[in-house]
């Protein structure tokens, strides 16, 4: 039991970050506004969580200008995908153990 709990990723302990990773895992890429709408967050709140995941190299972003408006799209990195899968496997193992 303890070993599985240790395998949980601290970065995904937060619900918002878990939500961001889930949404990005299910889509090739999502832009900032779409993430905001999905998670129902304010700009600042979402940005800080995105930055935290970015710092760990779990997600990457691309900036582009569409109609002169900046548009940032986010996608999950290979590393992020692996870390997220490990986290889900650990969660499932813990639940199964009970």
């Amino acid at each position: 039991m303890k070993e599985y709990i240790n395998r949980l990723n601290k970065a995904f302990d937060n619900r918002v970050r878990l939500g961001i990773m889930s949404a990005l895992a299910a889509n090739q890429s999502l832009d900032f506004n779409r993430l905001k709408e999905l998670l129902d967050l304010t700009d600042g709140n979402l940005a800080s969580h995105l930055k935290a995941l970015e710092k760990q190299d779990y997600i990457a972003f691309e900036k582009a200008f569409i109609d002169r408006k900046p548009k940032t799209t986010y996608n999950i990195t290979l590393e992020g995908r692996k870390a997220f899968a490990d986290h889900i496997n650990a969660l499932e193992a813990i639940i199964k153990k009970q």
Partner: protein
Amino acid sequence: MEESRLTHYFVFQSTFNMSNKYVQDIAEIRKMMEKSSRFISLSGLSGILAGIYALAGAYIAWKLAYATEEMVYSEQTVRNVRANWDYLMLDAFAVLFLTIITCIYLTRKKARKEGVKTWDTVAQKLLVNLFIPLIAGGILVIVLYTNGIIGLIAPITLIFYGLGLLNASYYTYKDIRYLGITEIILGLLASIYIGYGLLIWAIGFGVLHIVYGAVMYFKYEK
């Protein structure tokens, strides 16, 4: 003694709460993956209504296209397709129009209830993927008609509609995939038994929509 029991109780409570959190985490992951990649505001009710419109339309088409000839024996023949072409087209477009209006209305209503946007990227992808086979099929139907191959129109509409559903199913409930496959099979059957085209068409667009709409309604909306 009391104290140790109390500690035991708290330890038990906290592991229980933790495991509860893990279950909720998994539920949250699943919900977010679905919500971000699937359009789930399709209403089962619109399926039921679309099926009823299709049955009514098929009945009118049957009255228009088939003539009963009373000679020595009574015989039903398809003979009035070209004569009644304008009315048949009107019938078909009325069904199409009513279906689209009903779908838009009920989907918007359901989306509003769930607090999601109706016209988001997933909805767009769903429609684009549905309409690529539908438009191809529609063009093929026009080509067949101009070449006088009327018997293949009903099977072609079923097959291409099925392909459209199959394509769209990646962006909504997986059940739609099986509806698509069933429509394709019915279309192929209709192409073999051409005389039963309209009947099989009524099953595919009428009965199947009602059955699937009801299943979806009770599975996801009740």
